[in-house]
């Protein structure tokens, strides 16, 4: 082999090594973000599950005020270390242990009140008022859902159970939920996710019916699962592990596996097919994002008129009246789904409601009663029928 041949071969290899990186980079740069590249993507195929229909759905906002002072809530979160801190360690009731912010613990907190649960809620909360941070701040989120079947029969469900024992017991009595629970009229408790403001008021429900069927996301942490027992529940919760669970004809529980602030994992939301009207989405917080919910429903559910009809619940956009440009993406994009009734409240945020109204979305206004601070959206005691 001559030197020239060797040199030529070496040069060839050098060229191949350099050219390979260059060729790959050229493809990456010149093709990846072009219309042709996106033509390759498989078109979304809709696999619409027929889950029946209901005649109507009525929601009553038992309480949408999860807390009453945003600054106090955020002060506690800030001092505890931010939005990734485990909610059970922040020091809020009912898991306050008197050690201060960021030093709470489920075990120590619940040990102070366990023997009082679920029947002596006043005393339990009074104990916690001495041990927890900003004890007057907790409220809670809870919604009564009344489903009217096509044959006219009605069925009631409780969506979430709030936070403060005191506030939730008052709210339940105000809306007659205590009697509905006692009489067994409410057929199940659906816990959308493990957050303090949706879940920690569990004893307030257990006080009136500690055997009613309960649905939880299978991402609940061990503290959350233990709390079900410590609250006095005598049944076995259904741990939702499938993406779609039919609760009754026309009523679907949709599960999302999403990481959520304050160390919570997963949320479930509800979808209803309302006869001749279309799809109605009801959520606790919608941490997965309302457009993720609409997108999933669009792809996987069959509903009348192939139309999105209404929304109710928290949309988790600016719960702390905070903002981020990506929320504007949501505000801008929601319009394309053409909802006819937007019954947002709770963690949607007043600022979001304001932006929805500015874009002409049909936001249903409320009456601003029972400590709801503004009529911008549906408040405590307000109802909406789809």
């Amino acid at each position, binding site marked *: 082999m001559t030197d020239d041949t060797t040199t030529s071969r070496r040069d060839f290899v050098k060229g191949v*090594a*350099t050219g390979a990186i260059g*060729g790959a980079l050229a493809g990456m740069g010149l093709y*990846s973000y072009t219309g042709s590249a996106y033509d390759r993507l498989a078109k979304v195929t809709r696999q619409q599950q027929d889950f029946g229909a209901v005649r109507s759905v009525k929601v009553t906002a038992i309480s949408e005020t999860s807390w009453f002072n*945003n*600054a106090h809530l955020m002060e506690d979160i800030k001092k505890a270390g*931010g939005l990734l801190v485990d909610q059970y360690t922040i020091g809020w009731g009912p898991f306050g242990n008197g050690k201060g912010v960021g030093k709470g613990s489920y075990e120590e907190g619940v040990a102070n009140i366990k023997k009082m649960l679920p029947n002596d809620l006043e005393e339990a909360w009074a104990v916690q008022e001495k041990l927890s941070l900003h004890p007057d701040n907790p409220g809670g989120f809870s919604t009564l859902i009344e489903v009217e079947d096509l044959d006219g029969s009605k069925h009631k469900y409780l969506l979430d159970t709030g936070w403060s024992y005191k506030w939730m017991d008052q709210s339940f009595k105000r809306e007659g939920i205590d009697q509905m629970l006692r009489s067994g009229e409410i057929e199940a408790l659906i816990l959308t996710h493990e957050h303090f403001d949706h879940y920690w008021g569990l004893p307030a429900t257990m006080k009136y019916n500690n055997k009613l069927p309960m649905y939880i996301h299978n991402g609940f942490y061990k503290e959350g699962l233990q709390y079900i027992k410590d609250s006095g529940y005598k049944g076995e919760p259904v741990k939702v592990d499938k993406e779609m669970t039919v609760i009754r004809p026309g009523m679907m529980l949709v599960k999302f596996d999403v990481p959520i602030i304050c160390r919570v*994992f997963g949320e479930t939301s509800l979808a209803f097919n309302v006869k001749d009207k279309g799809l109605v989405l009801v959520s606790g917080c919608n941490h997965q994002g309302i457009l993720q919910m609409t997108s999933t429903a669009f792809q996987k559910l069959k509903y009348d008129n192939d139309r999105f009809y209404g929304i109710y619940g928290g949309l988790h956009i600016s719960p702390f009246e905070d903002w981020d440009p990506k929320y504007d*993406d949501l505000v801008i994009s929601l319009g394309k789904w053409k909802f006819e009734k937007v019954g947002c409240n709770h963690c949607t945020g007043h600022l979001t409601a304001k932006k929805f109204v500015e874009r002409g979305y049909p936001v249903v206004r409320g009456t601003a009663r029972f400590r709801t601070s503004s009529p911008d959206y549906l408040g405590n005691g307000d109802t909406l029928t789809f």
Partner: protein
Amino acid sequence: MEADNRGVSYLESRKLVKRWDGPWPAVANFLMIFAIFYVTWWIFQDPRGIMRMYTPYVGYMICRWLLIMFIWLAYILDFWPFKRSWLNKTHPVVKGAILTAACVLVMELLIEGFFKGILGQYGIAYFSPSRLHAMGLTEFYAEEYATEAIMMFAAIASWLAPSWVVACENAPWQKLDQPARGITIIVVTFFIGTIVYFVTMHSHMAILFYPWQQYTAITPPYWEKFANTVSGNFHIAWIMCCTVTVWVYESIWQRYPFNLIKTDWLRRTTAFFGIIAVALCMCFFLFYVQDLAWGLNIRGTRRDMAPDWRWLHVGESAIFWLVGVLALSFYGGNWPNKFSRPVNVFLRTLLSMAIGAAVYFLYYRYAHLILGTQKGLSHPQQFPMIPMIWLINIFLVNMWFMDGWPGWKAVPKTSAELEEVEETIVAHDVTWTPGLAKGLAVGAVAGAVVYFGVISILPWLGHIQMIR
């Protein structure tokens, strides 16, 4: 005073030699690095730890600005005001502690004094947490918004500052003594960085407030249609790719191929813009990869389907690669070295990508068990860039400030070895020949085939739940 400005920087003047044969130096360093990482993570960042700065933006800002401080001190100021003699004779541990402390001090002065103090009090309100709080924002979000803006400055600086040294070779101030050279480059890159900030991030910040601050910023921003979002994460994507490309070019690519250009101004200009071009290729590819693997992005969604998150994840993915690049370069001796420069570069690129992919997989699989973060791919308040940059910072302290202690020690380079430094700046080992031209053509086709092969299999790979 011993000559501090003798042309060759401290980092170029030293050779790091292993203290022991075999893999033990790397093993010892990695053990020490991971121990320091975990202890410092617990003290400063961990949401379960002591200071809990991972709020997330406070911790995010700190780790990014620390990175810039390290780059400024080691790369731009060539360790000024510390004397070369002190650097040569001081024990690496002492040196590491003092230099790191100096960087932390300057960082605090910059953040509290310049950004929050001067800029926030006399220029732009959103740099000041106290002003935002006084205007009605909660204390928490006032702090988060201000630190986000300050952090974004650092993101830009992490590309421009090293780029001026690596690509532009400090020109046109390369002949100035320190600190004149370093200060000039810091001021110039900071000035350019400010312009970049205003045309990339300022609109993002303006949208944070109601109503959109249309008299002070372009809203909606000009990139909305192109990037399918009004979020500045689009810019984070390509800027982080630029940051990563600078270090890829400097370390595992040994400034190849732009160092083949003999004309100084052309080489420097080509390298500066070439880095941007490579970064844009990477950026668009990494975005497209996600759409292929996980389905078309949906604007307005909140998590891994949202375009703003996917742009952010472009930058995050690039940083995982940077971890692989620096690990290979620092602790793997920039292996392999026995082939020609182009072949070495090619193999190192593949190897570092494999390391980066492994770190990516391990992070999303196990980080929530160790770092106090939340499981899942796209927590809205979680940024894998924070632990990755934290780790990279420790790499840099170890290799730049501590001379690779304990596994390595610094010895002066010989004249022949110093000539190799020159060869890196202007290379002569690849020349234009017919063989090279043929190879380039064949390689380019092969590279394109590999690219189209990868994008063809990605939709299937996306179904693998262990990644998602």
